[in-house]
């Protein structure tokens, strides 16, 4: 039976089915913690643990799915071009907001983790926690962290931003929909952007763009900021 689970088709099939199932559940019960990706991941992990299947065996098929992260990042460039026209009138303020917000995101997480005496490889895995998963994974591969930890935390950050972001911002006195959208995209990437679209179409567009811009800023700066705080890479 173990050999059966080593067939790549097993990993491919369970990933697709789990994701489709997660989306159906989300449609039925519109509740934020029922995030389709989170549900799919929890389902697959449970399945592997129950049937005693190694992650490596699952990933023989899983890697055919995750391969598409590469072209998807390129596709984000096309998405960015399409939406770019819509923010032109506020471009300078928008870029300032994403840059300052994005850099604060990298710096604060590094500093807090250092103060809490967390091992370096975890800091390297979490420095890019605000940006979209495929970009965050690439950053972690470059800096010597563990991409799987990055993926898990990035998804958690997205769900946190999606669930509580607008509530926190409104409590802190933010009224502008554009401000809420940009903040969600900068801090909580695509999962936050999904929530921004629920606030308004305009908030969603700004959020999607903020996600792309912060992806680029974080990709460019994280290796250097980590080097600054941690010294050479392990």
């Amino acid at each position: 039976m173990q050999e059966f689970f080593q067939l790549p088709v097993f990993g491919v099939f369970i990933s697709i089915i789990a994701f489709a199932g997660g989306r159906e559940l989300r449609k039925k019960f519109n509740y934020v913690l029922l995030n389709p990706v989170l549900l799919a991941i929890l389902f697959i992990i449970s399945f592997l643990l129950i049937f005693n299947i190694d992650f490596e065996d699952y990933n023989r098929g899983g890697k055919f799915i995750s391969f598409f992260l590469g072209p998807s990042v390129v596709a984000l460039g096309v998405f960015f071009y399409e939406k770019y026209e819509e923010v032109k009138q506020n471009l300078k303020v928008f870029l300032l907001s994403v840059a300052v917000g994005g850099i604060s995101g990298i710096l604060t997480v590094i500093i807090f983790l250092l103060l809490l005496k967390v091992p370096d490889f975890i800091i390297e895995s979490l420095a890019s926690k605000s940006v979209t998963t495929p970009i965050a994974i690439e950053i972690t591969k470059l800096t010597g962290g563990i991409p799987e930890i990055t993926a898990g935390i990035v998804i958690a950050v997205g769900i946190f931003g999606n669930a509580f972001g607008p509530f926190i911002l409104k409590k802190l006195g933010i009224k502008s929909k554009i401000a809420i959208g940009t903040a969600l995209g900068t801090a909580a990437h695509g999962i936050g952007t999904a929530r921004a679209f629920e606030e308004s179409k305009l908030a969603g567009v700004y959020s999607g763009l903020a996600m792309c811009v912060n992806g680029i800023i974080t990709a460019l700066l994280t290796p250097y900021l980590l080097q600054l705080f941690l010294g050479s890479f392990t």
Partner: protein
Amino acid sequence: MLKALAYIFGFLLLGELITYFFEIPIAGNILGMFLIFLALRLKLIKLQDVKPASDKLIKYLVLFFIPYGVGLMVYFEIIAAYWMPISVAVIASTVITLYISAIIIEKLEK
């Protein structure tokens, strides 16, 4: 669709090629994202030639990172040992990031 896929993979390959030969510390796909944006802006390629493939890829983006999320199970013990500092640092940092980018727009927006 085929043409669109060829463009997407072409720019991905170009990005990988540049990072391979010049050893710059940025991932090939991120460079590919930047280059395809530039090519669209400079009108070297047309939006409708790439849009069919890029729309589909973005639609299913979340599906593609599920295997990495599942991979977290291998590191379960590490997360269990450090879940407290990780949660505190990540949540605090996320709230600060949200507030700083929101307040800049709130104050400066015309």
